[in-house]
């Protein structure tokens, strides 16, 4: 018995646990400060200065907001399905967090004579896993809207579900073109290729653009924020929610935004690659510091995308529902298909 226990690599377990806890807390903190950044960006775009009372530059504002949400009364409407009502936000939160498992956050650290890759798991179907988990996010919205037992919530949930499912198609198609170039579904391989070569966005600008638009739609961000159209549907699918359950929904959204920004930087912008530098050399000479710098680079790229998300949100109004569906089925899908076919033809032609 003891021997079998010892044979198991306990360090491996500890290492992965620490990594998981680290990544989850980092994403939570980033989601928290996204709310702060969102308000600041909104304020600056509207010629205001935004939250600046709680702490320096208003940096404690997210804490105050979280506190407020925790303190609020928890209301569960008595006509709703209690179990589903609670399950909704949990699912939304869970699916939002799960995607982070396959993303490579940096190179390989050398600690205590072990090499620790900064990736929770490097499965060979990385991208498929992400797609699977992301499409589960619909359940969070759908269950929440259904369990609220409220017409507006249900309508919003239906809108949300059909929107997310529709936009997954062009998203997948644009990725297929990318996968033809990389030849692997493994996230680490995709990043590895970009470390030495060019970023994928140079080979797939159209694919990247389609992916970007779909990411906006998947995150329910303006101009595709129809599930939470306040002026049409009161508040959207989380109308009946209060206190921290509402907080979870809002939080899940910000985590989604963070994760899809990370995915975009990983797939198209070289992931943790330090731009204009030969990473391999740097890792040799600087060791662990270079690896941390890589992680920082990934976060910088991500922050850029998050800013883009917010910038767009505070610039344009939302689409009408028919415009949304037309855009998806009549524009993006044919475009993505064409992109895929052209890529395939070129790849075949070059390989002969």
């Amino acid at each position: 018995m003891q021997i079998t226990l010892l044979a198991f690599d306990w360090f491996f377990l500890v290492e992965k646990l620490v990594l998981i806890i680290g990544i989850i807390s980092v994403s939570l903190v980033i989601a928290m400060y996204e709310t702060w950044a969102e308000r600041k960006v909104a304020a600056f775009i509207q010629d205001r200065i935004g939250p600046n009372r709680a702490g320096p530059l208003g940096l404690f504002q997210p804490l105050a907001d979280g506190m407020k949400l925790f303190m609020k009364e928890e209301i569960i409407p008595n006509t709703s399905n209690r179990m589903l009502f609670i399950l909704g936000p949990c699912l939304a939160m869970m699916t939002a967090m799960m995607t982070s498992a396959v993303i490579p956050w940096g190179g390989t650290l050398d600690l205590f004579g072990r090499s620790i890759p900064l990736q929770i798991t490097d499965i060979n179907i990385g991208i498929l896993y992400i797609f699977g988990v992301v499409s589960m996010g619909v359940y969070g919205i759908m269950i929440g809207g259904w369990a609220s037992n409220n017409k507006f919530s249900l309508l919003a949930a239906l809108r949300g579900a059909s929107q997310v499912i529709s936009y997954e198609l062009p998203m997948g198609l644009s990725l297929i073109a990318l996968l033809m170039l990389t030849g692997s579904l493994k996230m680490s391989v995709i990043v590895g290729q970009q470390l030495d070569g060019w970023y994928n966005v140079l080979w797939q600008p159209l694919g990247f653009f389609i992916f970007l638009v779909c990411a906006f739609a998947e995150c329910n961000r303006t101009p595709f924020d129809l599930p939470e159209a306040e002026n049409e549907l009161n508040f959207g699918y989380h109308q009946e929610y209060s206190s921290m359950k509402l907080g979870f929904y809002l939080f899940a959204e910000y985590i989604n935004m963070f994760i899809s920004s990370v995915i975009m930087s990983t797939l198209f912008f070289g992931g943790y690659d330090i731009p204009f530098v030969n990473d391999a050399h740097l890792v040799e000479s600087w060791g662990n510091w270079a690896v941390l710098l890589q992680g920082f680079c990934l976060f910088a790229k991500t922050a850029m995308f998050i800013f883009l998300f917010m910038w767009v949100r505070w610039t344009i109004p939302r689409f009408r529902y028919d415009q949304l569906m037309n855009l998806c089925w009549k524009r993006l899908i044919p475009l993505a298909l064409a992109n895929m076919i052209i890529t395939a033809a070129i790849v075949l032609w070059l390989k002969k």
Partner: protein
Amino acid sequence: MQSLTSRAKQVDRRPMTFLERIYVWEIFKGMLITLKHFFKKKATISYPEQKREFSPVFRGLHVLNRDEQGRERCTACGLCAVACPAEAITMEAAERLPGEENLYREEKYAAKYEINMLRCIFCGLCEEACPKDAIYLSETFAPSNYQRKGLIYGKPDLLIPDPVTQPEEYKKALGNRANQKEKAN
């Protein structure tokens, strides 16, 4: 039809051009506009630290005035209460007793003088009605309160500090407007 303003614009009902139909270019133009605003000077005034300039005709909280020797000017004639369109002012008159000449300027004075700040509309008619220059509207806001009765201001709240014993506070309560008037004279 004659247009009402010089800025009226005909609604453009032409079908969208190709560039507009792919949205992207238009969105990009919009984003440039918002980016410009990102670096613009902000319109916010951080209130308690920074205060907005009041206009010279601003009408804020009332002040009951004193003369140079620190005597109350009000003679409880009631003209302000009559002039008040909101019926916010009530007062009780009393006769000045011998020995009180240093407190009240006239032979009759207001023993009780109350303004209900919830009723007051800050029109300034009381100021105009007063024959004795005893009441005027200052440059302060009516502050908030938890109770209605806290917003009925009595004489202690309204009277200006004594210019003889507390000249600093008197100057401050007088406000910018009075100071400017002094400068102009």
